[in-house]
């Protein structure tokens, strides 16, 4: 390779490497802000501030969803392997919201340790299969990666 071209090749590589390092460090420094939500573990550990708007996300604990009979109010618990969070929400839930599925809620965590949500988003998983296969695989008890290993009983 011609020496001039070799030098230009080195310059091109230097641009890619140096800018990648710069942007990489920037993103690394901002990593906590890029997370969309706090997991229940952070709430249980007390690392989440009260009375500020934020998002929480986790698995909807099977059996925890309680719907109010006279209004749209619904209470449920988000869990992950080491934490849990009580959520209260009034409104229409997305179609894919279900027990044992992940959800992301947007709202405020008050001092009474209840998360008052004004938006609930369903997080669907990476598994795609026809209904027959889903039924054949097990008795409908499929949990996605975020829910795997979650202790539902304690």
């Amino acid at each position, binding site marked *: *390779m011609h020496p001039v*071209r070799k030098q*230009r*090749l080195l*310059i*091109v590589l230097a*641009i*890619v490497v140096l*800018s*990648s390092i710069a*942007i*990489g460090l920037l*993103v690394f420094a901002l*990593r906590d802000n*890029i*997370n*969309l*939500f*706090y*997991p229940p573990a952070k709430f249980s550990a007390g690392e989440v501030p009260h009375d500020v708007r934020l998002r929480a*996300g986790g698995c909807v604990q099977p059996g925890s969803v309680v719907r109010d009979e006279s209004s749209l109010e619904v209470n449920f618990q988000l869990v992950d392997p080491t934490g849990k969070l009580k959520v209260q929400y009034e409104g229409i*839930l*997305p*179609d*894919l*919201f279900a027990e044992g*599925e992940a959800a*992301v809620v947007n709202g405020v965590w008050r001092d009474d340790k209840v998360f008052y949500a004004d*938006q*609930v*988003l*369903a*997080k*669907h*998983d*990476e*598994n*795609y*299969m*026809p*209904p*027959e*296969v*889903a*039924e054949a695989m097990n008795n409908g008890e499929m949990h*996605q*990666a975020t829910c795997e290993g979650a202790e539902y009983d304690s």
Partner: protein
Amino acid sequence: MAWQWFHRLGSPRWFYEKTGRWLVWFAPITIALLVIGFTWGLAFAPVDAKQGNSYRIIFIHMPAAVLSLAGYYLMAIAGGIGLIWKMKLPFMVMKSAAVIGVAFTALTLITGSLWGYPTWGTFWEWDARNIFMLILLFLYLSIVLLGQVYPEQEAADKVCAILALVGTVNVPIIYKSVDWWYSLHQPASIKFTGSSSIHPSMLYPLLLCIVAYYCFYTLSLILYTRQEILAREARTKWVAALVEPGTENRVKG
């Protein structure tokens, strides 16, 4: 001497004439693959157990996302080759890839938000992957716009190539974003190692759609680059002869 074949690749005329012969059979194959892939995915693949029919947008959304990422590398590599060897053709390819990249990234964002509404419950969320995908769109857009503000083509090409190279780090960030951060996006379904978490009856049409999109991307790139070649080489003899046979002696080469 060993590099001669490589320099021939850099000849716009060679590219124009070669691809002109390829298009005759490549375009019909691409259209056939797209039609088969979409029909299979949208009409014949089974419904999803949880998402029902709304998951079908994956056949349009996911391959578009793959190509907007792969296309970025193609654009940056073309820009790098142009910078190193000072060839004209790679810069034309880079410009074409930027314009097509805008289209594919916009398609990804639009179909993604149409998918997000019935499944997540929102058209847009500041999820890591969404944010970096939006940055990718702005990168493509700024490369297209930057190419138009310089009066000299050479300066424009150089600046665009440098910006393209600087943005490359965004591609792995988008790809790994779902693993690095808590996000609304699900982890990858198609895995290079281990078994995929998408049922074969849906995986095969999806893979076919990806192949069809790759062909469609290549076809768009060839067509746009040919157009770019004609525009930039308008004053050469061979283009003049192509446009109006018999006039090549009257135009200065």
